[in-house]
């Protein structure tokens, strides 16, 4: 985890509360538990079939009897429960998942999320992401502020096929935090190392700004 990643992941951790049932997408989101206290009380759901996911297993392999949805061996905490895929997604679709923390290719200013397919380039499938994005009670997206071409991840309008429309509540990057307000992703907090100018760098749309902004560590 580099410094930018740590900034994002630690800011995300502040959004979690004891008792919340949370699903973590592949990539940055899977790093969130590593910055939480052990007794955080947050319940992690793994869509392949359990709640109560604990720490990774040192030296564990994909042959472990407990793996997360990314195939990494992990432990179960006391109070964990295992189930089959149909109950696992009943939990998601039925509105029993408090929060999904996901990655993104693009987030639209209207809250659209594109994170599963780059036509002609990457199309390995959709996994459970569509249901997580559409049905978690709240969706937080974690992402570097700019993609490797210097283009902002927050875009006026998604150009890639959507995972789900208007589903993102919060976008956290290493530079800023955006929340959906009145149907638009609104800048609500800026990292202390950054300014409005550096936040707007690479963004192609008009982003509303909360007044006042919240402190980063709120």
């Amino acid at each position, binding site marked *: 985890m580099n410094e930018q990643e740590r900034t994002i992941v630690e800011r995300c951790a502040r959004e979690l509360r*004891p*008792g919340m*049932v949370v699903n973590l997408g592949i990539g940055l989101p899977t790093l969130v538990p590593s910055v939480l206290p052990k007794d955080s*009380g947050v*319940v992690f*759901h793994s869509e392949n079939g*359990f*709640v*109560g996911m604990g720490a990774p297993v040192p030296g564990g392999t994909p042959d472990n009897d407990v793996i997360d949805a990314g195939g990494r061996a992990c432990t*179960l*905490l*006391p*109070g*964990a*429960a*295992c*189930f089959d895929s*149909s*109950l696992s*997604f*009943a*939990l*998601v*679709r*039925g*509105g*029993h998942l408090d929060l999904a923390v996901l990655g993104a290719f693009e987030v639209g200013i209207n809250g659209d999320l594109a994170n599963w397919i780059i036509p002609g380039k990457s199309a390995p499938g959709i996994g459970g992401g569509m249901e997580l994005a559409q*049905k978690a009670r709240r969706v937080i997206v974690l992402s570097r502020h700019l993609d490797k071409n210097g283009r902002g991840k927050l875009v006026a309008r998604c150009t890639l096929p959507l995972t789900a429309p208007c589903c993102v509540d919060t976008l956290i990057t290493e530079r800023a935090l955006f929340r959906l307000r009145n149907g638009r992703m609104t800048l609500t907090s800026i990292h202390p190392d950054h300014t409005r100018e550096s936040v707007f760098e690479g963004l192609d749309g008009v982003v509303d700004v909360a007044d006042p902004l919240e402190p980063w560590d709120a």
Partner: protein
Amino acid sequence: MIDRVADLETVVRATIRSGQTVLVAGFGRGGTPFTILEFLAEHCHDLRDLTIVKNDANEPGLGVGMLLRRGMVRRVVSTHIGLNPEAIGMMNRGELEVEFVPQGIFAERLRAAGAGLPAFLTDIGLDTLVANGKPTVELDGRTLLVERALGGDVALLSADRADRAGNCWWRGSNRNMSIVMGTAAPRVLVEAKEILPVGALEPESVHLPGVFVHAVVQAQPRKHMMPQAETAQS
């Protein structure tokens, strides 16, 4: 894990309101939350216009039969109320609205609500009274009934074992409607015969994960069935 063990009186009074739809687990006696129902009948009998969703109507003066006697229930959604002649009488006199649902469709509609599916298509009940008034869809050359999800405001369950995190386990045939109901309401109250420490249930043996459950209370031995004569109408 959050400790979900709670006080019966506090949690019941804070949760259940007049006019709500209450999902009540149990097939006959097994799995029926008698402790919560007795508390409701004895201490919350000012509740009115409840819709009770239960496989059956228990027996006269027992379980949901107590709520019926107290006049707390406007409507019942059920599969069969044959063991409760009082309920049949109330239905026949127009004092109680009853919707009968085939048992598997009853379970499936509850499951659909818990699983976030607005409806499913089935041929069960086609060309029978059960199909009356239901929308139909043509699919692949077949006519199918549309069965809508059936959710509630609160679900009341009785588990044989629950841990303090709310994970539940049922013995024998007591499980019946508990899983589908336990997922089909935004508030789920479980009375447990045995309350265990967190970690006492093997993760693979949990029938209903605690994340679906909001409060666990200690079940009490059931009181005797009340003969009709002793029942004071409130």
